[in-house]
């Protein structure tokens, strides 16, 4: 990607060239995923013949990861602010959530969402949505601590200076604290995202026993028991 960055017009600002490079990289990744079946089909048995399935599986993984990742960031932000809040009940709820999620295996959480939630909630979730929820809740707890670390890493004097200048708490966070805390939190957040990519494979172990669900995405991959799935084996 450095090459792309270097070949863009010099007259553009650094920020613009950086943004365009990221956009090109994302576009390249999407195109690669879309056409993944082609290079896969050149590979030897057993991958070659089932290339389409493997490509679909990769796509499913990416979908789960991106969806759970984005929601996980939002959950992480909420839990981090909750834990840093001056309001005790908010702190208790956030602390409890982070403690429970980080203290139990992801597999158990996935089983809970797939097999226990349908009985607890009035709404039936599809396989895909259940997986996303379980994964997002999990990564959200880890993200919360990474984000909290970033916020706490910013020197208290920054807040004091900003508030002394008359900036509101929201303005202080947006213009002064967030940019600095982002740099500290980013490595941990990327770590969590990379783990999420691998952990998404556990979603194959959850399968709703009843109902087709509204969402048919990844249905041929989610669900350990393929014997009763008439669509197993078909692309």
């Amino acid at each position, binding site marked *: 990607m450095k090459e792309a960055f270097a070949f863009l017009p010099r007259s553009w600002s650094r920020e613009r060239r950086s943004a365009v490079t990221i956009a090109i990289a994302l576009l390249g990744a999407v195109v690669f995923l879309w056409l993944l079946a082609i290079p896969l089909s050149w590979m030897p048995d057993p991958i070659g013949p089932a290339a389409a399935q493997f490509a679909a599986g990769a796509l499913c993984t990416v979908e789960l990861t991106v969806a759970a990742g984005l929601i996980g960031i939002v959950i992480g932000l909420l839990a981090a602010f909750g834990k840093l809040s001056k309001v005790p009940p908010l702190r208790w709820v956030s602390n409890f959530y982070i403690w429970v999620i980080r203290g139990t295996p992801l597999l158990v959480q996935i089983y809970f969402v797939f097999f226990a939630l349908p009985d607890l909630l009035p709404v039936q979730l599809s396989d895909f949505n259940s997986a996303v929820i379980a994964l997002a809740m999990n990564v959200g707890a880890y993200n919360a601590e990474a984000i909290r670390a970033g916020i706490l890493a910013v*020197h208290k*004097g*920054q807040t*004091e*200076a*900003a*508030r*002394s*200048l*008359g*900036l*509101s708490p929201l*303005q202080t966070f947006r*213009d*002064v604290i967030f*940019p*600095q805390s982002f740099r500290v939190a980013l490595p941990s957040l990327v770590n969590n995202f990379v783990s999420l990519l691998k952990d998404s494979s556990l979603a194959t172990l959850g399968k709703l026993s009843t109902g087709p669900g509204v969402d048919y995405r990844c249905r041929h991959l989610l669900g350990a028991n393929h014997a009763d799935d008439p669509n197993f084996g078909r692309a």
Partner: protein
Amino acid sequence: MEEPLNMTESTVGNPAALKSGAERTPLITAENINKHFGTAHVIKNVSTSFYQGEVAVIIGASGSGKSTFLRMLNRLETHDSGRIVIDGIELNADLKHIDAVRREVGMVFQSFNLFPHLTVLDNVTLAPRRVRKTTRAAANEAAQALLAKVGLSAHVHKYPHQLSGGQQQRVAIARSLAMQPKVMLFDEPTSALDPEMIKEVLDVMKDLARSGMTMIVVTHEMGFAREVADRVIFFESGQILEEAPPETFFGNAQNERIRAFLGQIAN
């Protein structure tokens, strides 16, 4: 937009003005202020007033409570009891009051506290653009003028880490002045600087004083106090031991403790 740093001669900021202090209403009053940090009683029943255009210098040993008292004036510290009124606004838990006070009171810190991810220019223009909703162009123009006044025109697009300590502190002063405050608080502004840089910062502060700004300065720089202060306030163990004009204070201090303190300072 009026010039923030007015360099013309001013009658305020000289000892003669102090004599009529009794007739003027104070800009800031602090009445019976107390503060505890846990069990430690750090501010003990402190009462004083500050007048428009006055330069008050607060000195004292470390831990005497002078910085804590200064920080109470813009609610960076809260007072446990007593009353602080700044320009008619009472400083209490009410956020509207706190924000109103902070718009009128600027603060310069010992550790500068510049925003490291912003250029010098952005540091100075951030607050006017966000708080006063000034346009970027107007804010930039005003900031350039301020930075020229403190002698930093050449460094406008640099980042704080590229500047020396003295330059950073001058940017911090310009940043506070950009909000056109009525009062400027200085919390040991030169304590983190080496001797070569102290002079450049003190020169900026002297110019500011001469232009009529109301300043309250916590410092160990006795030379500055002698030269520029209208009043010297001596803090000891959370109390004001003496308040006097510099000639009286440095020439003929009544209190034994103060004479001992002054005796320990080289020149």
